[in-house]
């Protein structure tokens, strides 16, 4: 605990509710270090979250915080940012939150390109409800709703977001905590919609059912399976099997929605009627 925690966390709300060794605490640490580096005034930061373990993050951080409904954080954040473009908006979601119940909002947020940063905690499981499989649970992994192993193919969140048109996509892990701060900083500074997918660990509801008994085992798994882009580029498909890439995955310079809308207002007020 040091000055940075005391500055950005609501100290009276600690200890947090997350289980021993949970990746969410590590991510929150990386996030507040990113905010500190970005130098944002706390009053100008809005943190929006959905439902589930990840959704509780907004309760612990000293910003304008909005804990919304399951899957809908991006929808609330969209209204917030449109109404007050000066806000620096960060949206926290879990894998089920972002890609199952909120999947529609995620792809459309990517397409729209509003200047905000989505931070997706991908622990491959519904933790808070007791370990049901999610759209990112690896095939054949065990879950309380997949007692014989999951048969559903899984989403690659970063790929999904690139495909949907996000202008910045990166993937980090809870193990690479320092790199995660770098990625959040880069995503926040990017003009447009940025997505940071974080491969993280749920020791209680994923690990214990899938031969990763402790938080340490899970972090070691991340360390062993994550690959930097440059290294991955030199590897064969066979070598890349079951591994995942970390770092910046995609960046594009495309028009930002709020700015475009402001231009539209200006145009309409001048009496013009055609954007083209």
């Amino acid at each position, binding site marked *: *605990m040091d000055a940075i925690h005391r500055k950005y966390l609501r100290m009276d709300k600690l200890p947090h509710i997350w289980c*021993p060794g949970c990746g969410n605490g*590590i991510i929150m640490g990386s996030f507040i270090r990113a905010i500190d580096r970005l130098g944002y005034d706390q009053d100008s930061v809005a943190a929006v979250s959905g439902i589930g373990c990840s959704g509780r993050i907004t309760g612990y951080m000293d910003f304008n915080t909005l804990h919304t409904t399951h899957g809908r954080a991006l929808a609330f954040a969209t209204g917030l940012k449109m109404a007050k473009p000066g806000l620096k908006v960060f949206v926290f979601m879990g894998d089920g939150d972002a890609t199952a119940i909120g999947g529609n909002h995620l792809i459309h947020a990517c397409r729209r390109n509003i200047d905000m940063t989505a931070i997706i905690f991908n622990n491959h499981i519904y933790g808070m409800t007791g370990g049901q499989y999610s759209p990112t649970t690896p095939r054949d992994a065990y879950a309380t709703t997949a007692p014989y192993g999951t048969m559903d193919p899984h989403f690659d969140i970063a790929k999904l977001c690139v495909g949907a048109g996000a202008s910045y996509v990166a993937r980090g892990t809870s193990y690479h*905590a320092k790199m995660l701060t770098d990625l959040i900083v880069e995503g926040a500074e990017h003009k447009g919609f940025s997505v940071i997918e974080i491969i993280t660990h749920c020791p209680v509801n994923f690990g214990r059912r899938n031969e990763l008994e*402790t938080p*340490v085992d899970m*972090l070691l798994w991340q360390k062993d399976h994550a690959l930097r882009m440059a290294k991955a580029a030199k590897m064969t498909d066979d070598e890349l099997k079951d591994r995942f890439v970390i770092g910046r995955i995609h960046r594009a310079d495309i028009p930002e929605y709020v700015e475009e809308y402001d231009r539209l207002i200006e145009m309409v007020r001048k009496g013009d009627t055609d954007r083209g």
Partner: protein
Amino acid sequence: MTKKNFEITVDRKLCKACGICVAFCPVSVFSRDHDDKAVVTCPAKCTGCRQCELLCPDYCVRVEEIVHE
């Protein structure tokens, strides 16, 4: 160049005994007590990499450089 010294503290109230700092410290500064919580046993070995701080999910580890006058 002389070796830097660090003071490492663990807030027992916040520690949830996950064992992450113990496992990931490259020089084995920590061990676990009777409650499995982290205790600092070999602070002299600390290199100041702060991996323990970065990876502690409960912000209970603190590493401070000791500045000698």
